[in-house]
């Protein structure tokens, strides 16, 4: 066994020595908490309330399709107009959900606004927030690394953070937002710009509740920071989490011409094209 492993170790060591110094520096962990000192967030968790982004202001049933059950984020005039145009299209079933055609991540901060189970996987050097719906993965680096200065924008962005006691604090940057019109926050058509970023605090407030508080800044779309709190409740012990093969049998794609959500009949043709 040893005779097999030693040459591999040698090759790996030599390979590392050839890496640029900057790359090595990024890989060096620092301030990593020992596993047995980290909080226990194991199990499956479910978001409390409907998929309306600002749950704190939800006052009625109906979630995203009911008028007046959520507050506006502090949009400036330009983005308020964008949002109102989305609401008008939503009312005509012409504002497509970006994830209806399967294949793109929900993105941040919608990552914390999904149905179906969540898992919060706590490791010393990273925390992973996994969602069955999608599926989606949010990776939060806690090994001391910093955001890249030249990080390109993605759906979920780049998240780095640290622990303050049993509270995980992290920043998320490099978000696409609504730049390419394929990231929304909820089905009311709530959107943010590619200048959005967030500082998020996650903590367990009691054995059955995880709280996620996001302070969202967006100098292009918002007039001031927007604070949103989401709650997640623990599902029964032993809850299983499954595949979410969105493309397996998606009979509700969005019409690429109109944005209308279609219902596909047994013959493969839409029942509500017109």
């Amino acid at each position, binding site marked *: 066994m040893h005779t097999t492993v030693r040459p591999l170790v040698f090759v790996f060591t030599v390979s590392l020595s050839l890496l640029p110094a900057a790359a090595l520096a990024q890989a060096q962990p620092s301030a990593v908490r020992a596993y047995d000192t980290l909080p226990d967030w194991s199990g499956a968790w479910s978001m409390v309330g409907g998929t309306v982004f600002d749950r704190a202001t939800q006052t009625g049933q109906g979630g995203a399709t009911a008028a007046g059950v959520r507050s506006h984020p502090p949009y400036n005039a330009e983005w308020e107009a964008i949002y109102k145009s989305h609401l008008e299209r939503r009312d005509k079933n012409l504002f497509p959900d970006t994830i209806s055609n399967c294949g793109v991540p929900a993105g941040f901060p919608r990552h914390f606004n999904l149905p179906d189970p969540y898992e919060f996987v706590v490791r010393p050097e990273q925390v992973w927030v996994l969602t069955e719906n999608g599926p989606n993965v949010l990776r939060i680096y806690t090994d001391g690394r910093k955001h890249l200065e030249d990080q390109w924008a993605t759906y979920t962005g780049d998240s780095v953070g640290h622990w303050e006691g049993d509270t995980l604090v992290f920043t998320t940057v490099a978000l696409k937002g609504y730049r390419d019109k394929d990231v929304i926050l909820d089905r009311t058509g709530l959107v943010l710009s590619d200048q959005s970023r967030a500082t998020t605090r996650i903590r367990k407030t009691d054995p059955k509740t995880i709280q996620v508080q996001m302070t969202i800044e967006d100098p292009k779309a918002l007039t001031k920071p927007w604070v949103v709190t989401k709650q997640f409740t623990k599902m029964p012990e032993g809850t299983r989490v499954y595949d979410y093969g969105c493309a397996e*049998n998606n009979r509700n794609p969005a019409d690429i011409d109109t944005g209308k959500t279609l219902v596909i*009949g047994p013959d493969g043709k839409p*029942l509500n094209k017109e």
Partner: protein
Amino acid sequence: MRTHALLGALAFAALLAAGAPVTAHHSGAGFNSDKVIELTGTIKEFQFTNPHTWIQIIVEDDKGAKVEWSVEWGSPNSLGRQGIRPSTFPPGAKVTMRLRPMINGAPAGGFVGAKFEDGRTVGRWE
């Protein structure tokens, strides 16, 4: 075929309480949220697939023609966690089903509840 609208309080209560939502993946805007209809037919297939399950049921219309209805329900994952299985709607079973019909009258809708010939019920059936 037997179809009739159950309007008013019954329909509203059913909407609020109907099992797993079918709107987890999309808006559900094609269905009439103010109306529940009831129809009786024979199960053709239960598509226990993501992102949503679909119950295909053959129903005779008023002229005796057989029409295939598509009834959408929750994700197989969420339903599976509630005890629903692919065998819950076996092909050939006779069933009476309540659903929120499509706004445009097409033979499809959102599942509310079902009752089999032996009296067994699935979903909301009060």
